[in-house]
């Protein structure tokens, strides 16, 4: 049995295909499904939004999900190693994704900490009816102004729960893919589904719920003529499925060799959307109630993000009969959805370092997670946390996730010409086969849509300072941060891989290449003969670097 600090000889793996599917759904279903989708759909034409949404799901979301699965499963590595094995020049893409995940993990954790505190507050309506807005910004966050600089004042009611979130997450990560990540998802995902279903049922019985559903589902067909609505559908699907920033590459590298990749991907994609529809119904039923209670219409109460979760929902909790139950279910769901997504984001980083250094699970987890946790606690338990979070999130989405996806599809499709390789790999083991149409969607439609979204983001963020924050602040936490990730990614790919790393020593990958009759890897050493009748010719072609 391998010790805690040495390289285990075999790559970790999910216990079964179903555990992988649950974990991939756990990653895809996050805060965005609950607090972003309902408002995006409402703004984008209500019921009519279903058309651009389904188009985006079928023509971009699912094809890119297959793209990620194919890369991770074919090259069997964390994103830097998988891209390196595809082509040496593609390695910076992998590190870029790793660094994006580091940034996301730091702020994602604090939202989970807020939601955990609000689960507790909901039980006793601690904010005091009518005081929801001030309670969140002033009493809870003790929000300060970034104009006076970045604060170092520790806010204990945020800081201690944040530390607790990190302790829980580090324990899950340290237990490994099968016993930690797999088991956490097997427990949390069914629990999340049951809690959310209960929340939806309870919201539907609130007075005014019907008005909310009317607002949510009544189609505004004119919206379909607006290119902005189509762009927001593609943008939403893209973020919702957590494609193209390393998570799905990493998770699929833990799948067994013969797994049905596309069949699993379809279940993950539709489960994610199914959850969003459920969230839309629950959230708008509750907003309908709030509108009726305040004597206004749903258009005035509809909101998204932090405002929806931490101001509108507490208001609903104060006003509804049985509101505490709604609050506990809602914030508890946010906590569980957040944790299953956070562990997937962190796994990108842990897996990359494990491959790079050849270290064991516990050692890598501690070396990776503790610094990330310390940065997270330093930046997000102070009075300027919300401004830093808001800016970092907006910039990393546009110039991190979206940019790396754009570069990845162009590089893989047009420069390295690897789409046929990925297509064949998918088709050799999957129930749902893909062909030229899939390559067209990934190679042509995805770059066009992502390019359009990327350029419009650049224009919007240059036109006006984001969120009205000061210039120095945006240059550090916005532009500076996203540019430094690219520079760091290139520097990281220049670091040599040691002889103990998986790039140089991975007998399992060599066996896989022989079994699949793929060309041997240039770096992993001579291919070993899997059995006595082994294919000797493949062995001969092995190149020891």
């Amino acid at each position, binding site marked *: 049995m391998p010790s805690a600090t040495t390289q285990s000889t075999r790559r970790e793996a999910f216990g079964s295909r179903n555990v992988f599917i649950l974990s991939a759904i756990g990653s895809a279903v996050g805060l965005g499904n609950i607090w972003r989708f309902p408002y995006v759909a409402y703004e984008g034409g*209500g*019921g009519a939004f*279903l058309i651009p949404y389904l188009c985006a799901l079928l023509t971009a979301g699912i094809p890119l999900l297959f793209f990620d699965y194919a890369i991770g499963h074919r090259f069997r590595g964390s994103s830097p190693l998988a891209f390196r094995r595809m082509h040496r020049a593609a390695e910076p893409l992998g590190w870029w994704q790793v660094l994006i995940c580091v940034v996301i993990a730091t702020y994602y954790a604090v939202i989970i900490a807020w939601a955990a505190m609000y689960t507790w507050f909901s039980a006793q309506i601690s904010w005091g009816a009518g005081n929801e807005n001030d309670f969140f910004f002033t009493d809870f966050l003790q929000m300060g102004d970034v104009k006076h600089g970045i604060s170092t004042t520790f806010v204990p009611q945020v800081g201690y729960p944040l530390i607790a979130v990190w302790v829980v997450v580090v324990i899950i990560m340290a237990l490994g893919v099968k016993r930690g990540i797999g088991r956490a998802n097997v427990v949390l995902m069914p629990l999340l589904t049951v809690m959310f279903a209960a929340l939806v049922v309870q919201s539907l019985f609130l007075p005014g719920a019907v008005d909310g559903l009317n607002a*949510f589902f009544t189609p505004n067909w004119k919206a379909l003529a607006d290119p902005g609505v189509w762009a927001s559908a593609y943008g939403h699907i893209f973020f919702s499925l957590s494609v193209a920033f390393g998570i799905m590459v990493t998770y699929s590298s833990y799948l067994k060799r*013969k797994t049905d990749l596309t069949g699993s991907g379809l279940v993950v994609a539709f489960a994610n*959307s199914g959850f969003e529809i459920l969230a839309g119904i629950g959230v708008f039923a509750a907003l309908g109630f709030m509108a009726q209670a305040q004597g206004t219409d749903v258009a005035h109460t509809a909101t998204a993000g932090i405002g929806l979760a931490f101001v509108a929902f507490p208001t609903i909790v104060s006003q509804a009969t049985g509101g505490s139950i709604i609050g506990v279910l809602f914030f508890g769901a946010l906590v569980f959805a957040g944790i299953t997504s956070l562990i997937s984001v962190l796994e990108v980083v842990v897996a990359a370092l494990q491959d790079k250094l050849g270290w064991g699970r516990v050692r890598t987890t501690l070396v990776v997670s503790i610094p990330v946790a310390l940065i997270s606690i330093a930046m997000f338990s102070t009075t300027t946390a919300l401004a830093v979070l808001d800016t970092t999130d907006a910039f990393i989405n546009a110039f991190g996730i979206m940019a790396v996806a754009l570069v990845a599809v162009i590089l893989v499709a047009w420069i390295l010409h690897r789409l046929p390789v990925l297509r064949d790999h998918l088709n050799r083991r999957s129930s749902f086969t893909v062909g030229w149409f899939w390559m067209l969607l990934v190679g042509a439609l995805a770059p066009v849509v992502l390019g359009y979204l990327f350029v419009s983001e650049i224009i919007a963020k240059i036109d006006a300072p984001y969120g009205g924050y000061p210039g120095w602040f945006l240059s550090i936490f916005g532009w500076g941060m996203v540019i430094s990730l690219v520079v760091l990614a290139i520097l990281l790919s220049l670091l040599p891989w040691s002889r103990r790393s998986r790039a140089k020593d991975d007998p399992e990958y060599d066996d896989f290449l022989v079994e699949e009759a793929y060309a041997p890897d240039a770096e992993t050493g001579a291919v070993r003969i899997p059995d006595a009748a082994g294919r000797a010719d493949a062995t001969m072609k092995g190149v020891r670097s």
Partner: protein
Amino acid sequence: MTPLAVVMMIIAMVTVWGGLVAGVINLARHPEVAEAEPEPPAEL
């Protein structure tokens, strides 16, 4: 709810949840094949 909103709600549920059910049925028809791979390692 207005009839139009009800119709759109039903279409949304049928397409998305129907897609999920179809995906699950497809996967159930293609069960995981037992592999000649050795057991994954004890992870620590």
